[in-house]
């Protein structure tokens, strides 16, 4: 363990469970407990619990916050009702991606931004510097050290959460669910609150991301796992989180997203509202849209059994290097190598044949939908 690694409130819990620990984005995190393949399978078939306390919680409040966030983020915050959440991006002036995040409207003038662990300080500085033009009608607060995050993911996660938070009517009968709908967040009335529960995730499965105080994290961790025992819920590490998100075609900032590429290149145009008015990076995106989008983030599938593709393997077309993989793995669900790579736009169409260079040998691959989960082979 690097002495500079930060520990989440659950680090001791992971060590007690004999998790294999690694450094990720400056954090001391579990990579696996029983094994990546088994944890991956359990999330696809039942449910798995992840520590996501390393992620950042930045609150934006005040009467100017809607206007402010709409000038800072790519998606249209005005579309969010209270309790609504949306995936969105924060760009530099050139349109390059600084971070991808989730923006929740907790109250009408109170927003929660969930940002990537390795970007908390940079993001906060960037958000604050832009918020200074909106003072005093906007306040920004980095509350990351106060919060912990637990993600319960998998088809059985709703049943587990339902049992954990039963809604009982005045006659003692089960009634309407307390649980949030997809892409929304609720504050659950619990004794050792706060507890914010969002119906979101990074695995391609139904699931919940629960945000609680750092002190209460071990309590919720143990309670969720114990409640999920009948469904076979197990603790899962970042290894499975990475293979799960890659099968779902979700990009990872720092690997698939970077200031070198715009969200239009990354295929995230659905989360960019060019019509809503000015926001940081918009002019560059408009120019790119009017002229040309040079590269596109393509999903690759290996044709047949190959060594697993990994990040930074060259991608070739007609023997010429046309790009490199930014993420890659064996898909545990389908037993097939999958990868993401920025390719020249003309080579990014589905069905395009390319090759991936793995240790000097070329293996054929096909440009395919990025989610192998939704578009099964």
């Amino acid at each position, binding site marked *: 363990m690097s002495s500079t690694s930060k520990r989440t409130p659950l680090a001791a819990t992971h060590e007690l469970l004999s998790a294999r620990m690694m450094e990720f984005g400056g954090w001391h995190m579990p*990579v696996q407990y029983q094994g*990546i*393949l088994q944890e991956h399978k359990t999330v696809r078939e039942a449910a798995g619990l992840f520590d996501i306390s390393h992620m950042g919680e930045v609150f934006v409040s005040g009467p100017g916050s809607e206007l402010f966030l709409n000038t800072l983020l790519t998606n249209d915050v005005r579309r969010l009702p209270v309790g609504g959440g949306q995936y969105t991006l924060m760009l530099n002036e050139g349109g390059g991606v600084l971070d991808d995040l989730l923006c929740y409207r907790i109250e009408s003038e109170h927003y929660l931004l969930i940002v990537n662990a390795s970007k908390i300080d940079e993001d906060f500085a960037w958000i604050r510097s832009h918020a200074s033009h909106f003072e005093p009608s906007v306040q920004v607060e980095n509350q990351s050290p106060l919060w912990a995050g637990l993600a319960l993911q998998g088809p059985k996660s709703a049943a587990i959460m339902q049992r954990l938070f039963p809604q009982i009517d005045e006659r003692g009968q089960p009634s309407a669910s307390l649980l949030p709908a997809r892409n929304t967040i609720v504050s659950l009335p619990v004794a050792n609150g706060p507890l914010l529960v969002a119906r979101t995730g990074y695995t391609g499965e139904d699931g919940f991301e629960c945000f609680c105080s750092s002190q209460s994290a071990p309590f919720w961790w143990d309670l969720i796992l114990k409640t999920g025992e009948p469904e076979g819920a197990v603790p899962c590490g970042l*290894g499975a989180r990475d*293979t799960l998100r890659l099968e779902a075609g979700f990009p990872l900032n720092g690997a698939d997203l970077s200031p070198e590429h715009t969200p239009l290149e990354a295929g995230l145009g659905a989360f960019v509202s060019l019509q809503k008015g000015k926001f940081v990076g918009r002019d560059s995106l408009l120019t790119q849209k009017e002229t040309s989008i040079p590269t596109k983030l393509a999903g690759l599938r290996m044709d047949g059994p190959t*060594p*697993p593709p*990994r990040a930074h393997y060259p991608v070739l077309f007609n023997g010429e290097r046309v790009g490199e993989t930014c993420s890659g793995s*064996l898909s545990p669900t389908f037993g097939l190598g999958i990868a993401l790579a920025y390719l020249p736009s003309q080579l990014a169409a589905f069905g395009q044949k390319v090759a991936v260079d793995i*240790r000097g040998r070329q293996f054929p691959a096909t440009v395919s939908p990025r989610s192998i989960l939704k578009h099964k082979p």
Partner: protein
Amino acid sequence: MNVPTDSLYATSHEWLRRDGDTAVVGITDHAQHELTDVVYVELPAVGTHVSAGQQICVVESVKAASDIYSPAAGTVEAVNESLSNSPELINTDPHGDGWIFKLRLDAGADLAHLKTPEEYSAQLGQS
């Protein structure tokens, strides 16, 4: 960790079980545990000649690709084809069904640099 007494060991965590002029090679129980789930084995080509300590093939887990080194000088006489479809044999039976290749040892091949089971166990104890 299982350290069978019928084998010799390389510092880089391969085992070698000698039978006359030939020897079977695999990776140790400790190595498979460190690698975690093995998902791909790039087997060496039969007929390849290697010297002791030379990189000969690659074993890949979900997270990483690891080079495997030949513990002795010789010519690859056979490879474990079962690993193509069942790479997990390296995890489930690293010293048995998870063997990787068989060498015909060079005449006078020197095995003195390899560790005894006791020495290898001591190495694991220190790491």
